[in-house]
């Protein structure tokens, strides 16, 4: 009645199971890989790797003991031929069971001590004695990283520059969805959560360029949300900061760069700022980035404006698309022509008017693309002194308009992002009682939020930085439009 099947199984093939595990372990040491959490370049990542190794070796011992016991028992107590003897029907062994309840507790205490030490060393405030702290605000956007240096009034994107051996304290923010800020070789990650600003600090202790990547699933281009961290010697870092306050040289009239500059102004500049070098430009960039966000969020489907990386001194960058490709003329031209060929899902292709074509590629000739690329690659700290006022080419209102306004306003009747401006001179005088046409136009330029036209998003930045002469020239020019 107690029929026992004569189905037994040789155990040796089971040992084959360990082969993939063994191969796996052998192949495991790859500290040179770009995002390996071993081969670290900063004390926080190093402590984290050391703690990992500490726990790993304890786990490895437990692993060998348990798996060894399984194999040993399965072989030793395996049923031989037709031996149907009943083993001792033991109930248990309380002392043994209490012992193997306490043993894991002891092992875990050993693991908990360095764990708690590291938590409080790494996640609390920056220790006082590590040197002067550099403050950075890192902001995650779908799908790129913005870096602001509030104390230095510098803003950049996708390539973070920090000095070696100095603590950097980050305020981590997001406006859209949750991202995660992660530079594996320098420090573990902390999430960037909307409405919940986070904190992380780190030190890079080796000069070099390191990979970063968003680690929290954030939508269609999550895989492509990458960045780089460039760790400089202190002097090089200071030089970089100085460069970020030095305007690029103005292109010579008639040059390829000048053509590219005009094309950039007409097609790209409503979303990309590329000259945040002057005093006050930091605050403007913050407000215009906010304005772009407001524009996108108010009309997600058809907005002509999106949050976009600041491109100041783009020519000094190493990569394009947020660390996706090395920056070369070829990769840049590909990007401008068809961004999704490099980064599927990128917002600019969906929202910028220049990509409003059947195949989604830019409405630009190859020559125009090449000119824009030439111009962008020429953006480097120039020879002009830091803090120079924006060049305005005398007071040529048409030129000022072409450079600064055409990406959002047409001179005809059609809406782009903002209203078409044909006939503005005739309309302006009757918009607000007691306000002349000149005053109305000028104040609309200086404080656009106060004169918002119904049905348009509140996205226009304040343009007082153009300077009084330029604004006067612009107003005169606008009144001529019919």
């Amino acid at each position, binding site marked *: 009645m107690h029929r026992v*099947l004569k*189905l*037994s*199984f040789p155990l040796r093939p089971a040992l084959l199971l360990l082969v*993939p595990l063994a191969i*796996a372990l052998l*192949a*495991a040491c790859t500290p040179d890989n770009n*995002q*390996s959490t071993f081969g670290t370049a900063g004390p926080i990542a190093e402590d*984290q790797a050391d703690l*990992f190794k500490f726990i790993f070796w304890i786990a490895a011992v437990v692993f060998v003991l*348990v798996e060894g016991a399984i194999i040993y*028992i*399965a072989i030793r*107590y*395996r*049923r031989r031929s037709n*031996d149907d*003897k*009943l083993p*001792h*029907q*033991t109930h*248990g*062994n*309380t002392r*043994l*069971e209490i012992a*193997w*309840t306490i043993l*894991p*507790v002891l092992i*875990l205490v050993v*693991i*908990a001590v360095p*764990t*708690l030490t590291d938590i*409080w060393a*790494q*996640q609390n405030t920056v220790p006082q004695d590590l040197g002067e702290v550099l403050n950075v605000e890192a902001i995650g956007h779908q799908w790129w990283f913005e870096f602001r240096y509030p104390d230095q009034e510098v803003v950049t994107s996708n390539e973070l520059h920090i000095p070696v051996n100095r603590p950097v304290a980050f305020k981590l923010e997001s406006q*859209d969805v*949750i991202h*995660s800020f*992660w530079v594996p070789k320098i420090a*573990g*990650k*902390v999430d960037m*959560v909307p409405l*919940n600003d986070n904190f992380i600090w780190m030190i890079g202790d080796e000069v070099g360029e390191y990979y970063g990547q*968003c*680690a*929290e*699933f954030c*939508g*269609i*281009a999550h895989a492509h949300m990458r960045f780089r961290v460039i760790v400089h010697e202190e002097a090089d870092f200071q030089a970089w900061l100085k460069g970020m306050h030095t305007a690029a040289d103005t292109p010579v009239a008639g040059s390829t760069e000048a053509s590219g500059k005009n094309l950039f102004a007409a097609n790209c500049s409503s979303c990309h700022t590329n000259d945040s070098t002057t005093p006050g430009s930091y605050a403007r960039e913050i407000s215009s980035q906010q304005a772009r966000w407001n524009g996108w969020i108010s009309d*997600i489907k058809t907005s002509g404006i999106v949050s976009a990386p600041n491109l100041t001194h783009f020519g000094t960058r190493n990569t394009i698309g947020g660390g*996706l490709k090395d920056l070369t003329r070829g990769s840049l031209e590909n990007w401008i022509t068809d961004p999704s060929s490099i980064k*599927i899902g990128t917002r600019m292709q969906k929202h910028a008017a220049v990509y409003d074509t059947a195949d989604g590629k830019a409405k630009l000739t190859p020559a125009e693309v090449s000119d824009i690329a030439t111009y962008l690659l020429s953006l480097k700290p120039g020879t002009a002194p830091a803090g120079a006022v924006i060049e305005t080419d005398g007071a040529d209102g048409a030129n000022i308009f072409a450079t600064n306004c055409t990406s959002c306003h047409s001179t005809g009747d059609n809406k782009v992002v903002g209203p078409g401006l044909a006939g503005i001179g005739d309309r302006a005088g009757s918009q607000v009682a007691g306000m002349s046409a000149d005053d109305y136009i000028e104040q609309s330029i200086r404080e656009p939020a106060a004169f918002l036209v119904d049905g348009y998003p509140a996205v226009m930045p304040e343009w007082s930085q153009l300077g009084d002469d330029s604004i006067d020239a612009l107003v005169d020019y606008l009144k001529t439009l019919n």
Partner: protein
Amino acid sequence: MTTKSLRMPQLFPRPKSSTGIWSWIGTVDHKRIGTLYGITSFIWFIVGGLEALMIRGQLASAENDLIGPETYNQLFTMHGTTMVFLVIMPLSAAFFNWLIPLQIGARDVAFPRLNALSFWVFLFGSLLINFSWITGNAPNGGWFGYAPLSGATFNPGLGMTYWVVGLNVLGLASIAAGLNFIVTILNMRAPGMSMFKIPIFTWMTLITSVLIVLAMPVLAVAGIQLMTDRVYGTHFFNSLGGGDPVMWQHIFWLFGHPEVYILILPAMGIVSEVLPTFARKPLFGYPFVVFAGAAIAFMGWFVWSHHMFTVGLGPAANTAFSISTMLIAVPTGVKIFNWLGTLWGGNIRLNTPMLFSISFIAMFTIGGLSGVIHASPPTDAQQQDTYFVVAHFHYVLVGGALLGIFSGIYYWWPKFTGYFLNEKLGIANWALMMIGFNLQFAPMHWLGMDGMPRRIYTYGENMGWETSNMAASIGGAILGLGILVFIINVFYSKMNKVMAGNDPWDGRTLEWSTSSPPPVHDFDEIPQVKYRDDFWFQKYPETIAEYHHDEHDQAVPSGAQLDEVEEALPVVSGGSYGHGDGHSAIHLPDMSYYPFILALGIAGLGAGFLSNNVVIAVGAVILVWGLIGWAMEPVNDPK
């Protein structure tokens, strides 16, 4: 008969047919419902597996463009959702249904119609959520649905609405089933079967059911809030309206971590049955294993924020949750040692169920150890959201839950059907699964340590991740092959039946005392229980003294103490059928269509949130009809 005056006019008479489709739609037989659960969730298992294979296909090489990011995001969202809610939970439910009445000596569950309702709601919910593939709106925001990415602003369209509505419907099924099994186990045990004499699988089912009843409502709260965010524009989690996206994570993981134990405890119960049977020894330290299971279920409520170590909760919160997470490893470790103690000194037969169960211990140990590694927030800061975590939970859920379930399938198949699954194919099935599984998931450990984030549809050639990913993809294919061999085995064994008899494995628990497959009424006579593993001691009375002698020596608290056994057997349980008198007339619950109708109404209501108010109204009408019909249904149809 006697209640004629109270009877409402019936639109449907009680169904009577015992064959054909209507016999399945009207069934309240726990065995048939178990079969329905098993078949349905196995079909979803194939679907979820194919989704996984497509994911592995895409990741096999760097910068692959087999499938684009949008489809990829849908695939991993639905793979996770499917495997958790449509496969492992309902596969466990299939075992609950089949086995609990048989293991406790009952003729059905406490609420047979509620049991049928659970299945139909599960079926319609699973169809609803997968219908999104047909409409081209498959959910794409991850199985964890993190706000605000799961909200309407950043994820317009119907995808995540399908997801959240589907989960809410599925949650109802789980809660109803959980309540049913709690009541069944507490009230319907055979005479003499005190709580410390019930089989260990029944204990794990009880603990799991308590967890389900407590955890699924938490998901329901979050789900309803997210649904109103999406459908009616509320701002619970919408940061643009001032809602708190971190709150979603807290609520989701407050459900999500107990959910992990909902997934693994039934498999632990299966393994705790298989190991003693094939080692021919009782479970080592039964009370320890029971208390360890209960401790895991209790402590499982205090560890949720270890899913959120990088969210920025601060060092104090991370310290607290790190400690609680490490502590939960203790009862888990206790179970592993007790299983080894069960094997020690046994006479071990390495049949297919045993191979799967031993592999369960081996693989689950790996998952447990990697879990301890990222219980430490500083190391987790590097591992969170990387493939290291993917490796970890697949070792727990595939190496653990799934291997346990396969062990259970091979073990109880003869009881379910009367014949064996083929042993040679079974071993091939096991070997392919083990090789494929390890080749797929072991390399993910260092992909994670190499900085590969989860949920990326592609990666660069310069990252050094290609070899490991290729290995993982090949492993996935081998694992799939193993599942294919299982499917072949099912059909092969059906066509070449090797009959098993009532007790093919020399089992220990009551289900082996009845015929294979069991009769509709399960037991001709309700068993009288004296001992834990009562059936074993009936067969081997000479071992009674040995077992209980030990017990007294060790002074382990237990309900199975010898003096208690010697007592007369009064009515211990309040079972409806038999009342301690095994010879009374067999009473079985009548079939009913109303569970099916009510489930249809619930699913219709859910579909309404995806379409329009007319559908909501139609669903509500069907739902109310189902409720009233159910409530007014006579106990017996006039004969």
